[in-house]
């Protein structure tokens, strides 16, 4: 009797172990099969955005070129130059960048993007133009630091998108 009971107990124990291992295996399988979701903002989007807007041709002309791209307009702003039509280069830079960012990263309503910040600074930390920002900062963000050195001067562009 005792021997029979022992055998039955062993069998139940073995079966329980198998069931437990199978359940744990299924849980791990479930996690591995779960699809990874696309990020709301990808890093490559933010990087490409900065590279693209630096090449944007503004309506600020000078004597050498017809119209300046943003990259050269930043240098013109630092050197306190004016456009051919007497507008301040920094004002043109600020308004153009504000327009570009507003159209590219919509923040109103129930959109996934909650806010953004753009900062252009010199090597010593001085802001070239006032900070351009909109919306709220959240704990989820994608940001890029883009250094560039036109004609030996060092500038840094910080752009962060919050979602």
């Amino acid at each position, binding site marked *: 009797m005792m021997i029979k009971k022992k055998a039955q107990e062993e069998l139940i124990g073995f079966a329980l172990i198998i069931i437990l291992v199978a359940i744990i295996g299924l849980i791990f*399988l479930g996690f591995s099969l779960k699809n990874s979701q696309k990020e709301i903002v990808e890093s490559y989007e933010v990087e490409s955005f900065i590279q*693209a807007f630096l090449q944007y041709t503004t309506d600020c002309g000078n004597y050498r070129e017809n119209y300046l791209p943003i990259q050269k307009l930043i240098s013109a702003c630092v050197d306190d130059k004016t456009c051919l039509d007497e507008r301040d280069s920094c004002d043109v830079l600020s308004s153009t960048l504000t327009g570009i960012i507003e159209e*590219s990263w919509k923040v109103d309503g129930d959109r996934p993007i909650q806010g953004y910040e753009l900062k252009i600074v010199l090597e010593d930390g001085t802001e070239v133009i006032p900070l351009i920002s909109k919306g709220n900062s959240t704990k989820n963000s994608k940001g890029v630091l883009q250094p560039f050195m036109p004609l030996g001067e060092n500038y840094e562009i910080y752009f962060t998108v919050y979602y």
Partner: protein
Amino acid sequence: MKRQKSKILICSSLTSQTKAQLKIQQMVFMLLAVTLFFVLVGMLVLALRFAGIKESATEIEEKNAMLLVTRIANSPEFSCGNAFGKSRTNCIDADKVMMLKKNIDKYDNFWGRETNIEIRKIYPKGNVVCTIRNYPDCNLINLQSEEIHAEHSNFVSLCRKDLINGEVYDKCELAKIMVSYKDWREVQK
């Protein structure tokens, strides 16, 4: 006495044989039960796997579109090359793309089956579709002339040659290149 002894011996050998048979039976049943259990688990796993096959196919198409969108601006069919001075990153030659659109049938399935590419100017904003007649006073270049649904996008600089006061200069605008992919989940059974 002898009869009793032989009876005892016969009984004990019968008992041990029965025990052994019982043990073998127990083992066989256990093995059967374990095998059946693993077969059921395997069938469950297969059922779960194949239930998500449309999602997997869509995921693969989506990944291809995402890889394409990060690299396509630098491909020879789209890139500015040295046409606008020094070599530029993420720069698309709009004039080249319009010619590509004219000969798009030669690029059938070149970037993938049922993949469409659209370039939309972000700033300044607009919704005018580009044709040979209205170019460059337009905002949207759709290569296959089909609507885009599921897509991945990336920012690019859309450049072209423009004239002012009889002088040619480089004009670059901010745009988004969108690569569509097939969403298998929308395919009807």
